[in-house]
């Protein structure tokens, strides 16, 4: 009797895990399916040859990191570096298809939990997503993004909503606003605000 019970519990728990795992890739595939895509959207309008330069601040509660963010887009990969005003490297990264890899990180930020949050936020801000024509949302990395475009085709407003099978919190956890003067992303869960102001 107890063996039967044990086997039933094993079967049910394995089924739940397999079901959970099978959901996430399906979400990712729908975003990367080229047949469903009509055009690319991004938060920044990258120039073809030169780098994009921003005055950047990252505010965490009452602490602020300020500096310059320099980035470029080559093929589908964005390479970016955050330096402070004195020229000291804060961090640099490459991001493509929602995945982000840090190239360098200053010692004060070189902690797994900081990099985890930064990589998710920066991957979103520096993404190049393929979306259907006249779409209002897209999904990748188990996350739903609801967006609005401005007249130049870049994202003017976007909301980040978690969409994992096991996620209890299905409310918006990030909001991006792109005005003429600056681009602001607020990570509502960790209370981090990123502000980018173009340097002319």
């Amino acid at each position, binding site marked *: 009797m107890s063996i039967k019970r044990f086997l039933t519990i094993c079967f049910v728990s394995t089924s739940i895990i397999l079901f959970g795992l099978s959901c996430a890739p399906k979400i990712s595939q729908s975003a990367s399916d080229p047949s469903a895509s009509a055009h690319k959207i991004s938060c920044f309008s990258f120039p073809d040859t030169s780098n994009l*330069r921003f005055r950047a601040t990252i505010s965490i509660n009452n602490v602020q990191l300020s500096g310059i963010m320099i980035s470029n887009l080559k093929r589908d990969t964005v390479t970016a570096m955050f330096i402070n005003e004195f*020229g000291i490297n804060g961090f640099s990264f490459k991001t493509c298809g929602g995945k982000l890899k840090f190239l360098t990180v200053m010692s004060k930020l070189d902690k797994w939990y900081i990099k985890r949050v930064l990589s998710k936020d920066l991957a979103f801000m520096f993404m190049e997503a393929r979306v259907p024509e006249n779409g209002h949302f897209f999904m990748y990395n188990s996350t739903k993004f609801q967006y609005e475009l401005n007249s130049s085709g870049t994202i003017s407003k976007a909301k980040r909503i978690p969409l994992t099978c096991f996620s209890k919190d299905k409310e918006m956890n990030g909001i991006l606003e792109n005005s003429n003067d600056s681009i602001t992303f607020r990570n509502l869960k960790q209370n981090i605000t990123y502000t980018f102001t173009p340097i002319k």
Partner: protein
Amino acid sequence: MRLIKYLIICIICVIFTSRLNAEVLKTATDAQKNEIRSNIAKVSASTNSLECNFIQKKVISVLSETFVSEGIMCFKKQTNLRWQYNKPYKYLFLLSGGKVLIKNESRTDKFDANTNKMFKEISEIMIGCVNGTMLTNETKFSSQYFVGQNGYVVKMTPKSKELKRMMNIVSLTFSKTDWAVQTIEMVEQGGDKTIINFTTKNVNKTISDDLFRIN
């Protein structure tokens, strides 16, 4: 065959021009080293204030970028420093009486330099670079002295792990005429570097204390 000849000529040209561009540095003899140190110490002792413009170039290899910023630097004995960026962004670093003020477009922060280890080190390095006293700081840096065509170069390697993570080597170039710091070059672990050139220097000009006031 023609292509090979052409390639060889190109390679020779590239090597020749790169050698022309690179300044030849000769290792200073013990006598020259002592002369450099004593002259810098003399100038440092007689400099009560210094005001100059600076141009900062940050070379980022991964982005093939040279980011240029400009500003004004004011120094007043003993430890008052105003480091102000005006282009292409506004940023102020003020050090006075053991306190640090940092002001950018959106906010102003104040710190006690003595309670914050990082700020204390940065402040010491900045003032040490400006007045040349960093050369005598043998606990934090090991120094090598060179004689160049345009000036004397002191290459300093940090000893502490913290500083090594930030910079691989700091080079200070001193003028052969007035022994003042002309250039600061900081080379990082990955090869990226920051070069600060000082121009239009005003030595011992009256500088108002208001410029160093941290309220």
